[in-house]
């Protein structure tokens, strides 16, 4: 057996164990604290208790969304940083989040969000989809010759949609503004179970597909020319991966709002500890992203309990400080 494969397996199992323990802790803590042995007792024996309902209906979906969104955003970060060979790129750089925010704010201003439960994510998805389509059609018509230009155009689209977003906010009524602002800051709460499971499945599938391309990502990070000369179909691999990153980001943003920082920092953090082989980086970023977001959400809902902070604030604050600490210590 290959030594690297053994190391990979160990990393994978350790991270999974951490993810599982963190999830258990997140299940037990909250406005109503439930101790560990109580937790297991309730889960197996008291299916009709209030505690069981809180655990299964409120806390568990949040944890699942945390894993799905944290994983998806980190994965998108890994892909984009490797494809653009730029450490500062993150899932929101290409303007996908701006598009989603625009879609959501329009739906709120026109009171379309009261139509049915799924309308906010639905409009977020449409907004994100419009941005993705416009970037790819520019790419397909040969307007964009190289990756740096694609990146620049993404940044410009991001600015344009942000300005439009601001415009809509400034024109909206104050209670609508409140909904929009709160959505923008991000939350892992998602009452619709179908959406939670869809998100989780999309995100896990994304992780599997990206894993298949992890060796190609290693080759791609050598640069386009070297990758070409090593027999890689650069264009094809790059397009698949970019579309993958867009879908992952689009889904996450439209369901949980804009949760900054995860996609930028988790990949760096993982590389700091596990090296830059994408076979490890991809799977480790996915799980670490999940762990990180669950912990941030735990903080967000317990620190000023029974009130709740937007999770986006916590990810920025905690993530930034931890990252600077890790960077200085290494």
């Amino acid at each position, binding site marked *: 057996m290959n030594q690297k494969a053994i190391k990979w397996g160990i990393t994978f199992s350790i991270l999974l164990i951490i993810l599982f323990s963190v999830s258990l802790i997140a299940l037990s803590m909250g406005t109503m604290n439930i101790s560990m042995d109580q937790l297991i007792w309730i889960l197996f024996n008291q299916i009709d208790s209030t505690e069981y309902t809180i655990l299964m209906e409120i806390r568990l979906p949040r944890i699942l969304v945390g894993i799905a969104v944290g994983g998806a955003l980190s994965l998108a970060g890994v892909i984009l940083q490797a494809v653009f060979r730029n450490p500062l790129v993150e899932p929101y750089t290409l303007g996908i989040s701006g598009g989603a925010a625009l879609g959501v704010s329009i739906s709120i201003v026109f009171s379309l969000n009261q139509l049915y439960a799924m309308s906010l994510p639905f409009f977020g998805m449409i907004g994100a989809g419009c941005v993705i389509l416009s970037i790819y059609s520019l790419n397909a018509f040969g307007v964009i010759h190289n990756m740096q230009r694609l990146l620049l155009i993404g940044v410009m689209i991001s600015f344009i949609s942000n300005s439009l977003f601001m415009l809509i906010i400034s024109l909206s009524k104050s209670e609508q503004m409140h909904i929009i602002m709160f959505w923008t800051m991000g939350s892992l709460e998602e009452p619709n179970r179908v959406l939670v499971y869809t998100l989780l499945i999309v995100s896990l599938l994304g992780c599997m597909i990206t894993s*298949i391309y992890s060796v190609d990502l290693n080759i791609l990070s050598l640069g386009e*020319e070297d990758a070409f*000369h090593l*027999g890689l179909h650069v264009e094809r691999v790059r397009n698949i991966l970019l579309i993958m990153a867009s879908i992952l980001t689009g889904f996450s943003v439209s369901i949980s709002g804009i949760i900054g920082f995860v996609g930028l920092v988790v990949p760096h953090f993982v590389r700091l500890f596990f090296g830059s082989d994408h076979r490890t980086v991809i799977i480790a970023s996915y799980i670490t992203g999940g762990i990180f977001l669950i912990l941030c959400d735990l903080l967000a809902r317990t620190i000023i309990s029974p009130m709740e902070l937007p999770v986006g604030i916590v990810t920025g604050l905690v993530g930034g400080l931890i990252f600077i600490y890790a960077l200085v210590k290494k």
Partner: protein
Amino acid sequence: MKNYEQKHAVLSVNQLSCWQSSQFQLKNISLNISESCCVGIIGPNGSGKTTLLKAVTGFIPSKSGRIYYCNSPIESYNKQNLSKEIAIVLQSTELDQSINVEDYILLGRNPYRKRWQFWESEQDIQAAEAAMRFTQIESLRFRQINALSGGEKQLVRIARALAQDPKLFLLDEPTNHLDISHQLQILTLLNRLKREKKMSIMIVLHDLNLASEFCDEMILMRNGKIVIMGTPKEVLTCQNIESVYHTQVVEGKNPVSKKPYVFLVSE
């Protein structure tokens, strides 16, 4: 006689032209490279030397003319198979990633990766080890590549290309920015590749005397065209050099190897 040569040509280029926005980059290039032969390409900056190498690998698409590798047109090879045959060491590759030397060299085994293969096979690791042994960088095996010196980096790049196990080896100014001992080390290495592994080598060099010392044949280029192709003795004449580089030179001989030597004359 001509037929015989054709048969053993590893690479033969026929009337190759490349242009971009109506400007010629290469114009009617024809050449043959036979087995275990080292061909040096010289010429002023911007004369199309690098473009020629990249046109051979297909990275820069040719607009007219044909390229044959081992007597079959280059388009008949799929991308992965071609990169098992032809390896290139580019000038521009920056080694700034934080991976170790062994992992970097293993990336050179990509052409041999099967469709769903996730981990390197035993064969890949052996090939990487052989490449490190050949370039004498076994001691660097676990070092990070961004912490290596310029000379070591160049050897690591060459080792990665060797892990591809190519028959035709293209190098773009491999001795740039290196001190004379490293220059000599790299060119000696290429000489060994030629002799021991029967590799054919195409190398872009700026140093005319190094080229004369190590190459069996030389190509002098200007403005995307071949001015002359032949042995160092035929190419490195005062007349050729002066007409291409517009610089005054004096011909001489290396006192040890008796190869042609070009002295610069300052005005």
